[in-house]
């Protein structure tokens, strides 16, 4: 657990303390996150559930360094990331975080290969190494034969597998997924979950999955429930 002074306990990769996230909606202030304290150890598998609008996506965006909390402290692997500037955040995102979206977010004009390659390109990695890594990733996810296909030539499950390959290509220690099965039928949804669990099990990736689906949420060893921007339950088995 985190102490009041915010001292970190060895082994934790994510440490949120007193995190608020306010949104100004006209006159009204929405507290999407209100006093969230959360510590996640390296290699954990966590599911986040809760009603719509309870702040699950906001929590994931803050953890992904895509959104800044209004108040509170976020320590990511010994670094207080609330103090970083935008360029440092982009770098931290690139190196530590993989993100899988509900609606895939693949670039329509790029092939599956190019989509997976994108984070490596942004990171300035040499083409030869990019080719080797992307080819391997596509093989591991069983979509090597779809490398030259564009997203509109792929099924939903294949698209999400491309997205997972992209999220994992930089070998991040944290993999975040916001309703990854929300747009998929149950069979391909199960496949996608299976792939992410394998990354967690075999490569020790810290996995956080936001989901509506109780069956998906139950699979995680640690299950968090949110309500009105607060963590109301945190059960480990």
């Amino acid at each position: 657990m985190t102490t009041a002074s915010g001292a970190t306990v060895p082994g934790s990769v994510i440490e949120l303390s007193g995190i608020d996230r306010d949104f100004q909606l006209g006159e009204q202030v929405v507290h999407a996150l209100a006093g969230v304290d959360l510590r996640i150890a390296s290699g954990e598998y966590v599911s986040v559930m809760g009603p719509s609008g309870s702040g699950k996506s906001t929590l994931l965006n803050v953890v992904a360094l895509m959104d800044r909390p209004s108040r509170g402290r976020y320590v990511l692997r010994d670094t207080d990331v609330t103090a970083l500037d935008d360029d440092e955040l982009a770098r931290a995102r690139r190196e530590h975080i993989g993100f899988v979206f509900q609606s895939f977010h693949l670039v329509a004009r790029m092939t599956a290969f190019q989509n997976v390659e994108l984070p490596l390109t942004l990171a300035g990695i040499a083409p030869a190494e990019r080719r080797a890594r992307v080819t391997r990733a596509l093989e591991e996810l069983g979509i090597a034969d779809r490398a030259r296909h564009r997203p509109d030539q792929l099924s939903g499950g294949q698209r999400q597998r491309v997205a997972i390959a992209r999220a994992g290509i930089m070998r991040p220690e944290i993999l975040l997924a916001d309703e990854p099965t929300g747009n998929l039928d149950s069979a391909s949804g199960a496949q996608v979950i299976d792939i992410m669990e394998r990354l967690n099990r075999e490569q020790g990736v810290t996995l956080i999955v936001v989901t509506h689906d109780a069956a998906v949420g139950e699979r995680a060893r640690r299950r968090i429930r949110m309500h009105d921007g607060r963590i109301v339950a945190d059960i480990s088995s």
Partner: protein
Amino acid sequence: MTWRDTLALAMQSLGAHLLRTALILLAMSIGVIAVVLLTTLGETGRRYITDEFQSLGTNLLIMLPGRNETTGGAPPMLGATPRDLTLGDMLALERSPYLDKVTPVLVGGAPVSTSDGLERETTILGTTAAMQRVRNLTLAQGTFLPVLDPYRAAPVAVIGETIRAELFPRRGAVGEWLQVGDRRFRILGVLADEGVSVGVNFNDVVLVPVASAQQLFNREGLFRVMAEMPAAVDPQRAIADARRIIMLRHEGEDDVTLITQDSLVSTFDRILGAVTYGIAGIGAISLLVAGILIMNVMLVSVAQRTAEVGLLKALGGSAGIIRRLFLTEALLLSGLGAALGLAIGVLLAMTLGYLWPRVPFTMPAWALVAAPTVALVTGLLFGVMPARRAARLDPVVALAKR
């Protein structure tokens, strides 16, 4: 991200919107073509006209009867016609130490014909032997007009190349008789092909002794007196001396206009140079328009690709990377447009040169550098705003855009 990858991504994005890309390239290249062609025409006109005057020969002094109002001085008295320039004036000028060769010009039109019955209307120039030196005339055949007393008429003539070709298509002209008006002249020589030179087409002219021309046209007064100044002489001193000599002979009246080749060339050079810069400016405005077009298209592109920008940021792309990507797209558009425009512009200018080989088409080097430079700079300037707008996007908000 490496610049190679930035370039590749930018090109891929341009390639994904081919029609849009093609339209911008078209606009940009039209701007560059406009600059290249307009400045080529301006520069060619300037060259052409200054070359024309240059071909008069340096150190040439031309005297016209009458005072040129535009050069200042009192306007001529109402109804007063200027005093004629006479052969006496010409001979007096010949005695000036500041003038070398002096030659009169008397111009008229007359029908000329041969014994074969071939006939045409042409320009008759009455002059003296000194004309050959003053205008640097060369002969294709025969000899020029002989040195004669200018007051003496003589039935001899020198003809231009066109006259020879039309009146003596199948036989030698030298030694033949040529009927000019009501007189006959023996042809002494044929001028080499001279081309058009400042209004006088020496190919289409018959030169006769000045006294003969005076009789032909029943006219005393000369059209011009031309003189060559020695190279060492300051043109202003020669002009002053010529003016002094004429005033002495014209009862103190300064009633002639004096022109040097130098003053003509520099005046035309100045005017036409300004015209060239002016039309280059007009061309540059079209480049500006193309730049604004690029900005608008880039702004629309940023709006359409908001989700993509959000994704790039979510995947770890920094604001700098996003900015460089969009700037590269703008620069590619303007650079490719400029290259295309330059190629087409130069090709068109060369086609003009091919279609009219006698016009010395010249592309000004400064325009070939300035046009693409202005294109790139406008592309960069107008690309900055959309690029910054993209770079500032918040990843979460941008990703939520569909």
